[in-house]
Structures are given as C-alpha cells and as structure tokens.
C-alpha cells in the first residue's frame, strides 16, 4: 500500500512485517525513530509475542540479539555511528558465530568531533566484521532490503546490516509502498535456525578455536560471502516476482550506454547523481552511473563487468581513510584490477556536508577532463583548511582542530 511516510517509520513497518521475535533497542540518532515505532507496535500487540528489550548500551543490544538468535529467535536491532563502534566486539562475534541477525544502520559520522549527520564511516568501520552490508538508495529500497535481508541472513546463516543514510533517508517523508503481510509471509518463511540452544539437543556454542582450525573457520566465512554473491541476485528476482519491484541489486547501472565516464556510489546520493547524469547527458556528456547496493559481499565481478566499457571511473564516497583516501574506492579498484581504467576518489558529504547537484556536476566535468586530484574533497572549504595548516605550521597549538576552525569561521546563524 502506498504511503507518504517518514523513512524510519516505513522501515519499522517493514521490520514488523518480518515477524521479529526479539528486538533490542538503544537510542542513538538518527536510528531512534525506527525502534520507537517498533516499541509502539510491540506494545499494541501487533507483533504477537515479540519481546522488546530496552537495553543499557549498544554493546548489550547486539549481545542480547546474539543470545536471542542462538536460542532460535528471529532477532533485530538498529544502531548508528558511535553505537556500532561501541558494539563492535559483539558485531564481530555475531558473524563469527554465524547468527542470522538483521540490523539497521542509520549511517552517521563518527567523532571526534562528535557529529550526528550522515556519512558512511560507521558501517565502513565494520566492513570486515563478516556481516553482509546492503545499502539503500531510497526509503522504498530500505523497506524492501529489510525483507530481503532476513531471508538472506537466515538462508546462509550470517548476519546482515541494512545501511540507510541518516536523516537523508531516516527522516525523509516520501512515497513508500508498504507490502502486505501476506506478501511478506509468502517471501519470508518462519525462521528455521541452523543451530540453536535446546536442552533436548544440547550443543556447545562459541568454543575456543586455536591455530589448528581458526584459518578454516575464517575461510568458511569467506565462502559464505561468496555464496551470498550468488544468492542475493536470486532473492532480488524472487522479490521482484512477488512484489513487482526490483530492489537490492548489488550493481545497478544507470545510462551506461556509451558512457565514457562512470560514477560509482552507494546509498541515497545516487538519486542526486542520476539527476546530474541526466542533466549532463542532456548537454551531450558521455556519462553514466552505477549504484553499488552491497558493500559486503563486494560484487567484484558484477562491478567489473558494469565498468568494463568505462574510460574512467569516479567514486563518490562518504568515508575517508586518512592518509589513503577512499575505502569504497579501493574496493572498486579491486574490481578493476589489471585494467588501466583510472578510478578517481571523491570524498563527499562527510559529517553531513551537503552534496549539491552543482558541486557534483562541476566535479564530474573536471574528472571527464582528467583534471581532478585524487582524492578530491567535494565542497571542501579550502581557505579554512589552508589557514589552519598555515597556523599550525607557524605555531602548533594543541587542542581539537575543529574548534580552531570554528573559531576562525566565527560561525553565526545557519548557512546552507
């Protein structure tokens, strides 16, 4: 049913349709509305016997869904930013134990400086935890990805993160088609755990594994990701036949025909990119775009195929590996290894910095002329960083750089 609703609210409804049995919640912006809405649904008895745990930290949130999943329940939680770092140890643990947990990440920057706005530093920090990571472009996709995520997770018994851009999606009102319960039920069967804690068939879960077998355990986790690479597209097709929509594609090309320059990005920024591509195509530029919908497993071959005709690739990413540049971009390069195609990294939208059509257009233009630095920083306030660098050079001052910058800007009022 079509609704004009907030992203968080839509996701909460989608999760509810998946009939979760245990939900753990700890508040952190911008994920909070999702669990708030779920707690209401549980209280209203709309989720049957579902247990809602108000835990004392993200660490406990992940830990409790680990326990719930190990005990055979369909378990869900949501977090963001500092929260995912606080639960990091348990995030790795859940993957190590092959527990099919689904978690929403309302992507947000990581401090210091503390910042509540969107970028991808948080989920990127967990890139190698063993979790599968799906990225939503729209709230419709966010809704659909959660339904797909539970099935994906439970089929190969691995945990899945559904990443959606904080505020940009979580707080955006837009048109979303909320599936019916019957649709979801026909797609997602009840959870049949691969292993579970049961007095009638006891097992020991979470053994200590030494050098004699640890490599094998890790190798098998790698294999699970490779399985997911085959499984996910099938689920996407299955989903399309049942729901009439195509959601969750790992590699989604846009106007690649004859594109010499291809922009690659994850998440909500793809919408803006498509508008820019349309504009530039209108002006005769040979540009196209590829949306990457899964960061883990990373669709190496799918992406390589999509980019095979490109003369150059521009990666827009909301993350920075200081001293290296792009994390996502490095993965894209991995997909193109052996090919001469230049891959330009554009670091954009860190800490919620606005990504405007204009800025993108200007950047793509420079890239097409191969006149772009790598990495490039979209909308970076040059004068400020240069002033700060100069200041640090003449008399290094201790204390957080951010404050020094603010002091310089003498910020008053609000500017776009």
């Amino acid at each position: 049913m079509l609704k004009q609703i907030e992203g968080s609210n839509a996701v909460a409804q989608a999760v509810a349709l998946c009939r979760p049995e245990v939900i753990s919640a700890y508040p952190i912006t911008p994920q909070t509305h999702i669990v708030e809405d779920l707690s209401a649904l549980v209280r209203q008895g709309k989720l049957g016997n579902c247990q809602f745990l108000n835990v004392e930290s993200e660490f406990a949130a992940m830990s409790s869904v680990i326990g719930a999943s190990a005990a055979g329940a369909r378990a869900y939680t949501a977090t963001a930013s500092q929260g995912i770092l606080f639960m990091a140890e348990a995030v790795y643990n859940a993957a190590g134990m092959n527990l099919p947990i689904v978690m929403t990440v309302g992507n947000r920057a990581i401090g210091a400086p503390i910042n509540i706005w969107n970028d991808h530093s948080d989920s990127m920090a967990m890139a190698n935890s063993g979790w599968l990571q799906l990225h939503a472009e729209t709230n419709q996709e966010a809704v659909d990805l959660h339904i797909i995520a539970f099935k994906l997770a439970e089929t190969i018994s691995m945990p899945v993160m559904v990443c959606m851009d904080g505020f940009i999606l979580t707080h955006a009102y837009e048109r979303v088609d909320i599936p019916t319960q019957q649709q979801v039920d026909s797609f997602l069967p009840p959870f049949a755990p691969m292993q579970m804690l049961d007095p009638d068939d006891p097992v020991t879960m979470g053994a200590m594994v030494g050098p004699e077998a640890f490599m094998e355990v890790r190798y098998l986790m790698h294999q699970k990701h490779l399985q997911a690479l085959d499984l996910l597209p099938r689920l996407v097709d299955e989903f399309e036949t049942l729901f009439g929509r195509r959601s969750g594609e790992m590699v989604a090309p846009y106007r690649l025909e004859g594109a010499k320059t291809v922009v690659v990005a994850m998440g909500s920024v793809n919408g803006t990119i498509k508008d820019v591509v349309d504009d530039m195509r209108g002006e005769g530029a040979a540009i196209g775009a590829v949306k990457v919908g899964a960061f883990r497993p990373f669709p190496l071959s799918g992406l390589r195929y999509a980019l095979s005709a490109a003369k150059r690739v521009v990666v827009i990413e909301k993350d920075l590996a200081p001293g290296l540049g792009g994390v996502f971009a490095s993965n894209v390069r991995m997909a193109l290894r052996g090919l001469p195609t230049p891959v330009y990294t554009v670091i954009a939208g860190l800490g919620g910095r606005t990504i405007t059509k204009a800025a993108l257009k200007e950047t793509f233009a420079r890239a097409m002329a191969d006149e772009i630095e790598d990495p490039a920083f979209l909308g970076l306030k040059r004068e400020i960083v240069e002033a700060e660098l100069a200041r640090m050079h003449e008399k290094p001052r201790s204390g957080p750089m951010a404050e020094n910058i603010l002091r310089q800007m003498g910020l008053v009022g609000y500017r776009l």
Partner: protein
Amino acid sequence: MKKPFAITLDVSTSLANHTGSWRTSRPVYVHRLPPCNDACPAGENIQGWLNKAEEGDYEAAWRILVRDNPMPAVHGRVCYHPCESACNRARLDAAVSIHAVERFLGDEALKRGWMVPPGADTGKKVLIIGAGPSGLSAAWHLRLMGHAVDVIEAGAKAGGMLRYGIPRYRLPREVLDGEIARIAAMGVNFTFNHKVEDLGALMAEKGHDAAFVAIGAHLARRTNIPARDAGRILDAVSLLHAVEDGAPPPLMGRKVVVYGGGNTALDAARTARRLGAQDAVIVYRRTREQMPAHEEEMREAEEEGVRVNWLRTIKEVDEGEILIEKMRLNDDGWPEPTGEYEKIAGDMVVLALGQQTESDFLARLDGVEFDRNGVVKVDASMMTGHPGVFAGGDMVPSERTVTVATGHGKAAARNIGAYVQGRTWRHPERPELARFELLNTWYYDDAPATVQPELDLARRQATFEEVVKGLDESNALFEARRCLSCGNCFECDNCYGVCPDNAVKKLGPGKGYVFDYDFCKGCGLCAEECPCGAIAMVPEEG
C-alpha cells in the same frame, strides 16, 4: 543440526581427554586402625560395630561385636574401657561412650535372645580349665571354629572373678548368667566343683588335643598385722565370695577399715556399706594419684560415703581401734614411714592387698615354668613349656582385668585352633594407626557425650541394685553416631562430591567408591576433605 565448523561442538566430547596423565600422586582408599580397636584388650572391632549401630542395625552391630567378645553385656559394665581413653573424639569434645553402647547391645541381645551358631565340627577336642572370663572366651572362640570344648571349673558356677570378685551392684547376675548361658548353648560341656590334679592324665584319658588353663588368681595375699583377735581381720576375696554365696559376715552398724588401694579394696568397702557397715574407711599407703583403682569407681565409692586415709599403713588392730602410721613420699615417689602414729576407730579390717594363683598342679607337667609368686610363663602363642598346654588370664604375667583375660581367651583359642590343626597362628599385620592428625574433624557435628543415668545415692548405699543404668535406644543411637569412624570410610560422599574432575565413582550404599584414574589429576582434595582419614595419597611411579 548442521553445526558451524569448530565454533560449535558436541557436548561431553572432552571425555576423550584423559587428564589422568597429569597426575604425580594418586589417591587410594585405605583402612587405618582406629585407636579404640587398637586399645581394646579383647581386640574388638569397635569402629566396625559402632558403624552398624549408627544405622540402628543393633543385631548386625552385636554380631560383629561377638566375633571378638562373647560377653558384651558384661564388658559394657565392668570393662575399664581403654578404648575410650584412646578415642580421638576426646580431643573434640568427649570420648564416645563405647562401653555404654556395648552394654546396650549386650542387653538387647539378651532381651531378644540373639544366638550364634557354632562352627562346623572339626573332630578336635580342647580342654579348658577354669570358667572365668578367659576360659569362657576361649570356649566361645573354639566353638566358633568348630572344635569340641570341655570346661572344668573348681567352683560351683561359671564366671570366676566376674561372679566372685565383682559385686552384683556392678554386674547383675542375671546379665552374667545370661551371657554364660549363651556360651553354653554353643555346645560347651561344663563340669563344676571339680579341681584338676593331674592335667596330663586327664587329657590322655579324655583324648584332648590341647588344653587351656585359666584358673585365675583367687588366693588373697596376706600381710602380718599384730591383732588381739584374728577374727577381726578377713580378706576382700573371702568377703566378696561370702556375699556371693549368700552368707555375708554380720557388719551391721560396725566400722570397717579396708586396707589396700586396688579396685578390690573399693569393692570391699562399697560392699561393706551395703552390708550395713556404719562406716567404711580405706587405708592406703600411697596417694590418690598412685592408687591403682579405677577413677570412676573411686568417685562412686566416695559418693557412697567411703572415706580414704591416704599415706597410711596399718600397724596394729585393737579392740575397736586401729593404729596407723603416717607415710611420706620420698624423692623417688615411694612411701616411707615417718614414725608418726595415730588411731582410728575400727571394728574390723578387710585386707585387699592383691591375689595369687594356685598353679601348683601344673608343676607336675614337665616343661611348665613359673616365675615368682606362681605366675606361669607362656610364649608368644600363650603355650606353656609343655606342648599343647596353653595358659592365660590372671595366672599369666599381664594386667589383671576382665577384658585382658577375655582377650587372652581369644588369643589362646586362635593359637590352639592352629595348634590342633598342626599350624601356627600368625596375627595379621596391624595397619597404620588412624591418628587424630589424619582426620578432618570440621565435618563432624558437635555433640557432647551422653551421661548414663545413675541410681540415686540412698538406694545405692543400701542395696545391691545395679548402680550404673544403661542407655535407652535413642541415647545409644546418639552415642554410636558420635563415632568418628577413624581410618575407615563411612560413606559421607565427600570424595565423590569434592572432586573437580568427577574422577570418583560412587558404587552405591555399602559398596563405597572407586577412583577413575583416567581423569583423576591427583589434586588430593578427596584425601584432604575425607573426614576420617580413609584416603591416602601415594606417589606415582616415576
């Protein structure tokens, strides 16, 4: 369940890991010798029968008891119970009142008429001379072995000193008779009022394979005291015998002075009180500490009004008064005369200066040797110099108590039993003593000794009713359960419980436990926490 590799495991798979290989020393179950058993002259398995009594299985307890001593009811009354002096529990609160439980079991047996069948007939015949505790004990054990037994007794009844030396207020005769009857019922032939003159001839005639001589020591030792009227002096043995025969001398209202410091002296004095003597005074040449009489009896005597003149000797017996000399202890602790005299009132003197044995008839057997005052020499097997003739009880060198005598009877029986089969008896090796230090006494509940009820004094002084009463069933049970079971497992499950490796297997009630050396790491917790010291740690062979 399709489990993930390595991170998820099947349960109890660690049983494949035999941690026993870590062990450097191993626990083993042992039986150590309880101090009570060690101290018992009759060689009773006290811990053994207490263990049954703890469970309330009194008959089983009694049956273990009479394997070593046929007269528990008697011993529960007259034994001076060295077992209790040795009892480890004395170091906790008070010794287990073993004699009281023994007496309870003995009385139960008499009440319920428990019997023991004799052993299968061996065709061997043994002659026993003297039906005192030694002889009776020997007879019992020989019958258990299945040998035929003839007992010849000079007196009119069996019992010896039990009957003629121990007053009935300490040993009621129905008890004595009851236990003797049970021995007789084993198929022992008694001949009474027969004094053996020629043992050799007698054995040859009746075809005995061996003889055990246990005629005791009934001859009162006399001392020369000047007296106007010798009638005023008699000896304790005769006094007690006369009382037993129902013809006591008239003592009503008289002042009796008993000379001596042994148990017999006390018996004489207490008997005199009961015969109506208005006063019973003991004169003893040493101090209370040096007195050989048993402390308890001394206490009872004093309660009954018997007084004692310590460090005195009798010099002269006169009409109504007696001259006594004060003594003093010299540096070696020996009494010596001081030359100071005093007079005390006294109508009659009873001498209780010990007894001698009348063993002259043995002298006719070649090989038999004696030492001073007619005590017969025996070897380790209790055999006299004459092959096949054994001797025991008061007539051989040893402490003269009923229990020692009873022990002699058992020992003699074992040696005789072996002898008639052409073998020699070897006493089994004595296990390590279960010292107090080997116990973990934390585990024993606190429980002071039960006190046996006593007859109130008035009646005590007037009658020959038994002074010390027995325990009732619940008290006997209580008392039995105070036993620490030193050195012997009583199945408290501690070893089974405290093993961090589940390396102790419990076999069920009465069956005890075994160690599973596949998993025992040798930590020693079981041995350390065993209350009774029944587990030892022994080093593994390196």
